[in-house]
């Protein structure tokens, strides 16, 4: 909690300044603008909770906003309930609506999700028109205005909105710094990677849309109180959904500050343009406003906040760059790279323990293409298995079958004696199977430590434990020196190691590495190899996919060679590298003859 308080400090200061400003503004029109800035900032934050953090863009947040507004209007008109109670009720309605919308819609991704979301407010708009609620007004309360939030002093609206906004900021901050926020960020970067890191993506997404819907519902309810008139187009309209996007995208997506900056700039500017030009050159305000937004988006595509922050960080980094040269010292340094397969000397024989993973008769076809055919092998505890094969041999497909990313047509995958076929990736991760991806998906703006922490939640019971797991994993891959850098500043090798650390942070029994050495120079590959070897010595069982044999030869205890989806050879490195069929698959017939000659 104290950390949360510290992270809220800048917001609290901004809020105090804003409150002072509001207290001195006596012009009711300026005061209304001050209130509306807060309303749209809150709505932007609600959008941010879902779309900013998960990356699933919602074009339909007006659905929750409108339901909130109608909850207030109908509640007061028909049941004479005060908005003080109706605003929390609207939050509940919004949250439930979020779940109802999310459950079917999260089957879709990307543009399809965005477009499907667009449909909800449009449908609701017609439903409410059909129900005969074209125009509702909140009844005027002349006797007891305060009890019904009908303040005669407009400053109170601003203050109420400010308190509400602060509450929403606190919630967002709490989400941001917890495993909730980490899970959402992981989903945003790569949903598959998130699943692999043990995150139940659907559950977190549902939590996120429910929270987002609840906030939007409450904001919509307050909006109804401010405007006193609710019509379907004014709360379910396209412009309402767009408002959430505009303020967030302008200010910066995926940060608390984004919607605040966006609303604080855009709402007054649009209103001033409207007031100054609307009656003289009608329509020009829209043109200027639109062009201003386009310009800002061209200059700062991710929003004002990130642009300013990146520039500021760069300047600060520039000032203090030289002293901390990033020397990554690995405890035991690298053996010079040897190209030819020599007999394995450096590595002591490892115990061949019990069978950790057993694969039997695994097959998978994509239409006529048999990507994996009747593959079977065992991985013993403590060993390093290298799965190799030329491009297109079916290595990654096999990996995805092991991971739960795709379902095999036949066969079984026994992990620790249990058949894991049909389990979701995050369940496999929880069971103790970690993995890395061929294409790296680091969370570029987060520090190395935080990147790794995302992977720790699958085992960690608390935030503290997650932190300690992450630190441990960072140390094991030798990245402690750069642990506080943001991922964007790392080299490819460091990113590979960071991915490894992220998988390690979940304390897996079995680690599946997908082309971890891809894209590395020879020296760098050796460093990564050394780390993998060390992990193996520490007791982690590893299966590693590569299509080059070179660096693998000294690393692995056993090779599984795939070609055209089937097992071509299976054995220790020395025999496999001499196997004529392997040489043929890799190099062609000519080389077989030469090798035998």
């Amino acid at each position: 909690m104290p950390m949360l308080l510290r992270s809220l400090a800048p917001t609290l200061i901004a809020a105090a300044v804003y409150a002072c400003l509001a207290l001195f503004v006596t012009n009711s029109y300026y005061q209304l603008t001050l209130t509306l800035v807060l309303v749209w900032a809150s709505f932007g934050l609600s959008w941010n909770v879902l779309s900013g953090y998960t990356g699933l863009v919602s074009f339909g947040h007006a659905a929750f906003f409108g339901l909130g507004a109608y909850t207030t209007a109908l509640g007061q008109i028909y049941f004479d309930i005060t908005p003080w109670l109706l605003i929390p009720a609207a939050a509940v309605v919004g949250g439930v609506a979020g779940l109802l919308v999310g459950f079917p819609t999260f089957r879709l991704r990307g543009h399809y999700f965005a477009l499907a979301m667009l449909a909800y407010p449009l449908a609701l708009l017609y439903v409410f028109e059909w129900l005969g609620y074209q125009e509702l007004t909140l009844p005027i309360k002349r006797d007891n205005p305060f009890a019904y939030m009908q303040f005669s002093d407009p400053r109170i609206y601003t203050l109420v909105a400010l308190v509400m906004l602060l509450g929403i900021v606190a919630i967002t901050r709490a989400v941001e710094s917890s495993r909730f926020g980490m899970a959402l960020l992981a989903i945003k970067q790569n949903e598959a990677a998130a699943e692999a890191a043990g995150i139940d993506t659907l559950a977190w997404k549902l939590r996120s849309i429910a929270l987002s819907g609840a906030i939007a519902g409450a904001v919509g309810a307050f909006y109804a109180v401010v405007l006193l008139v609710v019509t379907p187009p004014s709360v379910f309209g396209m412009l309402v959904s767009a408002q959430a996007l505009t303020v967030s995208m302008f200010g910066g997506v995926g940060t608390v500050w984004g919607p605040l900056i966006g609303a604080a700039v855009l709402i007054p500017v649009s209103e001033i343009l409207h007031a100054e030009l609307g009656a003289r050159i009608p329509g020009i305000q829209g043109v200027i406003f639109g062009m201003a937004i386009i310009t800002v988006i061209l200059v700062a595509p991710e929003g004002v906040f990130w642009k300013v922050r990146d520039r500021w960080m760069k300047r600060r980094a520039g000032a203090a760059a030289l002293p901390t040269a990033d020397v990554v010292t690995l405890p035991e340094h690298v053996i010079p790279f040897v190209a030819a397969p020599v007999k394995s000397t450096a590595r002591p024989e490892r115990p061949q323990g019990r069978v950790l993973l057993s694969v039997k008769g695994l097959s998978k076809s994509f239409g006529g293409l048999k990507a994996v055919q009747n593959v079977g092998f065992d991985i013993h505890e403590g060993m390093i298995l290298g799965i190799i094969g030329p491009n297109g041999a079916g290595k990654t497909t096999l990996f995805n079958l092991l991971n739960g990313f795709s379902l095999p047509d036949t066969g079984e995958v026994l992990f620790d004696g249990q058949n894991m076929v049909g389990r979701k990736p995050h369940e496999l991760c929880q069971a103790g199977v970690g993995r890395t991806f061929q294409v790296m998906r680091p969370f570029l703006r987060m520090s190395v430590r935080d990147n790794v922490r995302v992977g720790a939640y699958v085992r960690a019971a608390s935030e503290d434990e997650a932190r300690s797991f992450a630190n441990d994993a960072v140390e094991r891959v030798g990245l402690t020196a750069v642990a506080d850098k943001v991922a964007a500043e790392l080299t490819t090798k460091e990113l590979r190691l960071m991915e490894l650390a992220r998988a390690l942070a979940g304390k897996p029994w079995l680690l599946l590495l997908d082309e971890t050495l891809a894209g590395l120079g020879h020296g760098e590959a050796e460093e990564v190899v050394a780390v993998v070897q060390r992990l193996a010595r520490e007791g982690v069982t590893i299966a590693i996919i590569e299509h080059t044999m070179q660096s693998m030869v000294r690393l692995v205890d056993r090779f599984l060679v795939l070609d055209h989806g089937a097992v071509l050879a299976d054995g220790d490195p020395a025999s496999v590298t001499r196997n004529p069929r392997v040489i043929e698959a890799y190099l062609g017939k000519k080389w077989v003859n030469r090798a035998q000659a």
Partner: protein
Amino acid sequence: MNDVSRLALTRRTMLAATAVTLIAPRAFAQSPADVKVGLLVPLSGLYARPGTVMKMGAEMAIDHINKAGGVKALGGAKLKLVVMDSGDTVEKAKNAAQRMVAQETDLVAASGAYLSSFTLAATEVTERAQLPVLTLSYSDLITDRGFKYVFQTSATAASQARQALPLLMMLAQSASGKLPKTVAIITDNTGASVASAKPMREGLLKEVGLELVMDETFTPPLSDATPLVQKVRAAKPDLLFFLPTVISDAKLVLEKMNEFGLSQGRIPTISFGIAIAEPDILQTINPALLQGVITCVGSWATKGHEELIAELKTRYNEPWMTQNAISTYGDMWLIKDALEKSGKADKAAVADALRSVDGGPSKYYPGGILKFDDKGRRVDAEMTVVQWQNGIPVTVFPQKLAVVEPFWPKR
């Protein structure tokens, strides 16, 4: 009736004015301060066009009032129009209203805000600021909230729904000498159309003795009107109620009726609302197709407004005068009358004067008298029936307001 003579700038009044100038130069030297009147209408966005026409009406009225000597009770004070753009959303309308009351504190009254929902939001603000507002919006809700500072000059939506059918029956009776017996309805399924058609089906038709022989609802946009119009031809109704919202749909149906020989008033085709009589419609539909089409509207330029129509045409190039222009024109005169009555350029006094005004027969609003009931509704407000004749929609009913005779098939 008084107003007309005031309007006409005859040689005699000029002479009188000159005489007054000569006799009492001091009164003019210290000309009284202008009295500000607000106009809150949409000037940008989707509703800019009707808002602009309302502004034309207001400007014309202000000019006429000022030329005729301003507010006499205030020593000939001139009226000054303060125009606010209510934009195209409820939020913008509320913002504009708030700006109006916060920054133009010396307004004595205002008129606005075209769309009912804008008027509702704006009057929430003006009510609390105790600024009297005149409106041509129809929604009953506007004057059902117990507000004291809003005055509705048109018949409300519910009242129009009650009035329209009997009015049409009277028109048919007087034009053709017999009462129609059967009716067909073609309506789209948008909110406004459904709201109009539903009470008709559920009893209003029966009350006036009409039998519904065909009832078709379509979803805009229509791709082909043939099946609809074929059914009309087969049903041979005495009347066709046609309620489109989208102009392209109106065009398709009217073209097809023409093709089938049902147009030109052969089957009296009746719409409701202003959409089918707005000047914009001529950009898409040939006026020949519209010939004979009838619509019931809350207000229209009627008998006695000929000079206004002519002036609107020369000054703004508007082909005819819709409700938006004439009603807002009337609002300015009504505010002027209230100022004369109260004798003070003060919003509370003007509001009092409006509440107790009793100006006899209304000149710029159809039917009834210039008097408001407790709710703020104009007493006995009526509506007008407008028919497209030779490319212009003109008032044909009630007779006392009609500019020309309606044409109606005499079968």
